[in-house]
């Protein structure tokens, strides 16, 4: 029987995994997130928005890399204000950056285990957690291959494996489907649904159908602000046959953006 730490059995006292109020985050000198309000709990949340909408900057702020320039941000009950100790939140965080950096000489297993160590997992849990994370992304056959020998899709999955190795309560995936073939994308959707049952998963993507298929919730941002939030089915209801797109969700996506742009120019 393994010892259970008090952190594991503590009641969840924060209502939202992510809670942002009037959040402002800079990307360079530009305010890429400008007055964003967002509350996300357990489930899989698809983050949609055109290029330059501030998706990556938002995810970087949620991953505690980019410091908020204003507003309030609370992650897993920890305020991100430059004063509070971020370590408890970071232990429960999983992050796949848009540009996933890795050590090419490490094997998949070594890199995932190294990340588990950086996330301060108990030493005894690391080997099993590493194997499980690699299994879940379907890289078991390549577990002991050097990262430099992997294809783009395999690297992306290795990146997801390191993100989930610590069973994060808050999982941030910035374009995880890049480089995956259709079959792997289906597997990833399956994995996301599974992860979303007891964690807050935020997935940034350009692929509307991935969001519809795998997410319980859609978050649409534009120009650094929350544009719309709702269920995937509700997204479809936003548009009609007159809007561009090959599916109801895509038509809803373009309808929301067009409506917003029309309001902005008025």
């Amino acid at each position: 029987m393994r010892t259970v730490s008090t952190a594991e059995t503590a009641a969840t006292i924060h209502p939202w995994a992510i809670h942002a109020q009037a959040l402002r985050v800079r990307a360079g000198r530009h305010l890429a997130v400008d007055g964003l309000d967002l509350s996300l709990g357990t489930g899989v949340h698809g983050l949609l928005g055109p290029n330059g909408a501030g998706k990556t900057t938002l995810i970087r702020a949620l991953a505690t890399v980019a410091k908020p320039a204003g507003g309030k941000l609370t992650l897993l009950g920890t305020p991100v204000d430059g004063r509070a100790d971020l370590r408890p939140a970071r232990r429960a965080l999983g992050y796949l950056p848009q540009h996933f950096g890795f050590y090419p000489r490490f094997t998949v297993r070594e890199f995932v285990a190294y990340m588990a160590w950086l996330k301060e997992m108990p030493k005894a849990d690391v080997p099993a957690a590493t194997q499980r994370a690699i299994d879940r992304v379907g890289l078991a056959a390549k577990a002991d291959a050097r990262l430099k020998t992997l294809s783009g899709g395999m690297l992306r999955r290795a990146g997801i494996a390191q993100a989930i190795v610590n069973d994060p309560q808050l999982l941030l995936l910035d374009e995880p489907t890049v480089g995956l073939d259709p079959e792997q994308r289906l597997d990833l959707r399956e994995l996301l649904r599974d992860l979303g049952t007891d964690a807050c998963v935020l997935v940034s993507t350009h692929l509307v159908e991935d969001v519809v298929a795998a997410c319980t919730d859609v978050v649409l941002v534009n120009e650094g602000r929350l544009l719309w939030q709702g269920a995937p089915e509700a997204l479809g209801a936003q548009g009609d046959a007159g809007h561009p797109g090959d599916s109801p969700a895509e038509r809803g996506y373009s309808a929301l953006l067009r409506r917003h742009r029309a309001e902005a120019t008025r």
Partner: protein
Amino acid sequence: MSILGLELRRSAAAGAALLALAVGVAALYLIPGRWSEGWMPLVLTSKEYLILLWPLALAAGAWQGRREHRAKVGELFATTPRSRARRMLPVLVAMGATLGLAYLLVLVAGGVRIASTASYFPPDVVVIVLVGVLSLVAAAWLGLGLGRLLPALVTAPVLAVAGVLLVFFTAIMRPWWLGAVLSPVYGSSMWYPFQTIDSGVTGALAIWMGGLALAGVLLLVGGSPRARVAAVLPVLLGLGVATAIVPRDKAALLAPVDPVARELVCTDDAPKVCVTRVHANVLESVTPLAREGLAVLAKLPGAPTEVHEYARAIDEENPAVRDDVVVINVRIDDRGGLALPDVVVLEVVSGLGVGYTGDCPRDPAVERAAAYHLLGREPVSDLELYPEMIWEEPELNAEAVALWQDLQELPPAEALSRVAAVRAAILACQDSTGLLSR
């Protein structure tokens, strides 16, 4: 899976250490004659090769220190709770331990060869080696810090070249005491096998290297510009303390003598033969040859009765000539045994047993003819006897042979009395020219 084990396998540590080991052992075994005389010669020679190993460790550290930048993992790692210092600890340990171990193994590789012949093990050896290890650790850590500070592709090769220049020019710079603080190879050029390094010099180097190591750690671990500026502090502090304690007197800085190593070790029975303690292992080989030489000289009146090894330190006066003692050089070969045993008898007899002081007039042709007359064979040029000799006055031996032939034609008693007159003249500090051909 241990993270230290992971870093040992996947960082530059193992490769750099293997390279350092290969370079160090190759340099040692290229010229084993430089260190076959004993433990201190081995230690000093290995320390001299830090001119290659120190820059190598510096460059390896810089290469490794650039890893996070090269792999662009900063974004991902910034989201993890483990602090940068804790993240870097296994890298620091892996790089420091493997390179330090490599230096020890270089010494072990040399030690294996001399273990059976080297008799004298001075305690200074341990301290000098440990500070050598510290120097390599410091180089690796400083490299790690600089590699992170300037994560460019050229950093490592530039540091390698700069390291060689720095180690070399600080070793020969003036004032000597500053070079003694700054250069990890200071004091390693060997003048005699009973040389050592002053413990004050070793201590000062240890403090300076400790300062560099700490600066490297601060550069590697510290994130803010203020932390980087703080890295200058241990460098200045180390330099200040080291220059304060380093000895300034020439005796401690220029080829200092280990008095115990230089002490003469003698045979118990007469005629007495003595060698320095570092050469004690060849006393048994030297003794019969030296006594053979004494027996040749014994034909002369008032002939010397002892043979001592020549053991003058670099800054000393020549010892006063004693007419009962012959002073000879003891040469050691590549394997630690007696080199050129054939010339030992000649060494004793040449100069008719009177050492050179530089103050008195000497006639080499007369002395050579006289010595070879006692030996009963025709004079030969020193060029044929000593491999390290590259030049001799061309007429010298012809002149000696002519004088020797004249001696051969004289009645033996007359010849011997002329040779005795030459020895008497040398001892009296008078010119011996013409004494053989009256």
